[in-house]
């Protein structure tokens, strides 16, 4: 059994891991649709997006690994950390649910990622700026794809509308975490590595509300619930998804196809 790697307590590194892990875990969740989507074309679309996200995770985790001492690679970061060292927002790790749930989560996270990548193009880290420029094109398509489906489902049948509303009630409370300000953000702003996530709140709401307005969906009232995945405190679902992702690398260290 391969032991876990140690992650240094460094604010810049945490900022990168929050981003890279959001892509990694959401990519894994979307990959679960492979062979299960409602129609073949959608199956391919979801797998495409999963691979886009894994590609983004690879770039960001490689960069994060270069800031660890000793240096670690993308695979070590992806597969050999303890649960507490994964810093994705909880929203990304929730089980994939039904198609409406997946579509709404994709809309929420793709919109957030798009806004984040836009700003990261101006990062003081040239490598991160480069990753952002490439990822932005992908995120724009993910957002459009999800928005298109949300309108279809929200405006579709009684059953599809009911599922969208149920997904909204479940997912909405997890959005608050995406825009919390903390010391990690402050350090990133200070060094120019990236924006404070809190500054994305307004533009995010504007874009989400515009999609909701097309189908007369109302965002639920804000609650006091705060998920804490980006602090390393995850939902009960995280252990299972990590077990699935890690079992191979843990059992066969350095294993390759």
């Amino acid at each position, binding site marked *: 059994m391969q032991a876990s790697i140690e992650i240094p307590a460094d604010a810049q590194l945490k900022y990168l891991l929050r981003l890279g892990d959001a892509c990694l875990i959401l990519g894994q969740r979307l990959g679960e649709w492979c062979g299960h989507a409602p129609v073949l*074309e959608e199956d*391919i679309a979801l797998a495409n997006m999963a691979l886009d996200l894994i590609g983004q995770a690879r770039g960001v985790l490689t960069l994060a690994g270069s800031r660890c001492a000793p240096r670690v690679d993308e695979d070590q970061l992806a597969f050999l950390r303890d649960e507490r060292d994964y810093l994705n927002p909880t929203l990304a790790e929730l089980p994939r649910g039904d198609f409406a749930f997946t579509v709404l989560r994709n809309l929420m996270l793709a919109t957030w990622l798009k806004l984040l990548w836009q700003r990261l193009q101006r990062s003081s880290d040239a490598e991160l700026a480069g990753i952002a420029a490439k990822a932005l094109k992908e995120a724009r398509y993910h957002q459009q794809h999800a928005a*298109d489906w949300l309108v279809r489902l929200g405006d579709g049948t009684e059953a599809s509308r009911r599922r969208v509303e149920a997904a909204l009630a479940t997912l909405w409370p997890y959005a608050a975490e995406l825009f919390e300000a903390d010391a990690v953000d402050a350090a990133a702003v200070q060094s120019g590595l990236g924006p404070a996530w809190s500054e994305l709140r307004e533009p995010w709401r504007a874009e989400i509300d515009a999609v909701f307005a097309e189908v007369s969906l109302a965002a639920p009232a804000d609650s006091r619930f705060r998920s804490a995945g980006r602090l390393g405190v995850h939902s009960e679902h995280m252990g299972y998804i990590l077990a699935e992702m890690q079992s191979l690398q843990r059992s066969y260290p350095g294993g390759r196809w």
Partner: protein
Amino acid sequence: MSTTTPSLDPVALAAVAPTDALHSAAANEWPLWEVFVRTRAGLDHKHCGSLHAADPKMALHMARDVYTRRQEGVSVWVVRSDQIVASDPGDKAMLFDPADDKVYRHPTFYQLPDAVDHM
């Protein structure tokens, strides 16, 4: 779909006949679209396959996801399959065989000036 010619094959008929559910599933199926992709270096859009989609926007999205994953193209057309008018395969001999012995229709009997490109 209403435009499909019903099969007269008894096996196919037996498979479709028993339940109304199957009939309504066929009626609810999204229409078929033909997909044309223009490659990076190509000048024209080439037919590359088909897919099912509910409307033009969805058909374009799906065409992008299904047929341009490996850098196949820089532009996509989709068109409803039932909007394409096709020649009858039974008329193939009548329509196309007469061209077989008309070699003089190829511009191979003329000397082209060097200045004329792309012929």
